C-alpha cells in the first residue's frame, strides 16, 4: 500500500506533517509532501490513515501498489 499526496488539492493546512512527520515533510510554502516514495509498511498504515482523515482538502489518499 502507498500513500499519495495530491499537490493540486493541497493548500498548505499542514496537518499531515504536523501529525505524521514520519511520513510527510513541509516545503517552503508550508505545503506537505510525501517523504520517500510513499510505500507503507504494515505498521505505517494507521499513521497514513490518520493523515488522510486530517487533511481538510482530501489531498491524501491510500492506494494499492
Amino acid at each position: 500500500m502507498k500513500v499519495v499526496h495530491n499537490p493540486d488539492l493541497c493548500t498548505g493546512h499542514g496537518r499531515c506533517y504536523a501529525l505524521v512527520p514520519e511520513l510527510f515533510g513541509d516545503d517552503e510554502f508550508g505545503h506537505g509532501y510525501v517523504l520517500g516514495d510513499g510505500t507503507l509498511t504494515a505498521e505505517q498504515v494507521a499513521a497514513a490513515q490518520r493523515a488522510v482523515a486530517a487533511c481538510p482538502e482530501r489531498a491524501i489518499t491510500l492506494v494499492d501498489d
Partner: protein
Amino acid sequence: MTDVINDPQPFRNNAPLQLDRAVGWDYFTAPGEVYERDGAYYLTSIEAIRFAHQHPEVFSSAKAFDSLGSPVPLIPIAIDPPQQIRYRRILDPMFAPRVVTPLEPELRRQVREIIEAFAAKGECEVIRDLGSLYPTGVILTLFGMPLKDRDTFIEWSEAIIETSGKNAASDMSQAQMEAAMNLFGYLQGYITEKRANPGNDSLSAVLALSGDDAWTDEEVLGLCFLFVIAGLDTVTAAISYLMYHLAIRPDLQRAIKETPDLGAKVIEEVLRLELPAPLTPRVTLSDTEVCGVKIPAGAFTFLVLGAANREDRPIPDDIDVENADRGHLTFGGGVHRCMGSHLARRELKLMLEEFLALIPEFSLAPGTQPVCKWPGGTLHLESVNLVWNTGAAQ
C-alpha cells in the same frame, strides 16, 4: 446583486449564537445544506462548502469583503485567482511553519510576560489582559515594528474592527474613520522607512520585491490592513474560547498537565467548535448548482463553516479529543485557506503552555457567563473572567 451589506439580513442576524454556538450552528443547518434567505445563499454541508472552495472562478471573493470597510483592496483575501495565486506564492513562504518556528522563543517570551503581569492577582479578564495584547505583539514582531506601539495599535484596530461586518464603509463613524486614517498613516510611515532601510522581517521582505513582482504601497497597505482585521481579532477570539472551555473543564486542565500532547488536541477541538470567522462570504460570478440547488449569478453566499464542522462526528457539539486529529474547516479551504493558520496554531499552543505553567488551575469567576456579541464581524466572547488561587500560582 443583492446588496447584502446594506439590506437587513434578519435570518443571519437572528442566529442564536450568543450563549451556545452549537444552537447557532443547528439554526443554520436546519433549513438544509444549500438554501436562500433574505436574498443571500447559505452553504452548510461539507460537500457544499468544498464545492465553493474548489471553484473560486464561480464563488468569487473579490466583491465579498466590501463590508469590512477597508479603503484599499484586502490582499490577498479579496482577490480572485489568478492574481490571488501570485500573491500567495509570495506570502505563503512568509507564514510557513519554517518561518514561524524560529520566532517561537520570542513569541513564548512575549506571552509569558503578559501572563506574569496578572498571575499573582488571582484573576484576569482574558480579552483585555491577554487576548488582545498577544496577537498584536506577534503581528508587530512579524512586521518588524516596535512592541512599544502595541497599545496604540490595539486602540486603532479595535475601532476599525468594530465597523467590520456590520456597516458599509460609508457608514463608518467619524472615530472609526480617524482610527483607520491613523493606522494607515502609521503603516505608511513604516512602509517608507522599510523601503529605505529593510529589516529582517516579513514586511521588509514584501517591500524588497522588485521588477514585475514589486508591490505598490497600496498593495502593501491592503496586506497590512488584512492582518489587522484577520490576524488580531480572530486570534483574540480563539484565545477567549480556549480559556472559556478550559475554565469550565477542570478535568481537561488536569489531563493536559499530565499529558502535554493533549493540549494540541484540545486546541483543535475548540477551533472546530468555536469559529472566530463564522460566515465566510462569497459572490457568485455565474449561474451554478450546488447539491441540487440552483444559485444565480451575482448571489451573495455565506459558507457556514461552523455547521460543516459538526457533520458526521460522533460527538458533534463537545470537545472530542479522540477525534481531534480529523480535519475541520475553521481555517477555510481551497485557494483562500487562512494564511495565518500556522501562526495562529503556534500562538495558541504557546499561550496555553505558558498559562498552565504559571496558573495550573483556574475557573470562571462566580456569577459570570461569557457571551458572544451577534450580529458582528468576528464571533468572539465579549469577556471571560477567570479566577484562581494565588497560592497555587507560585
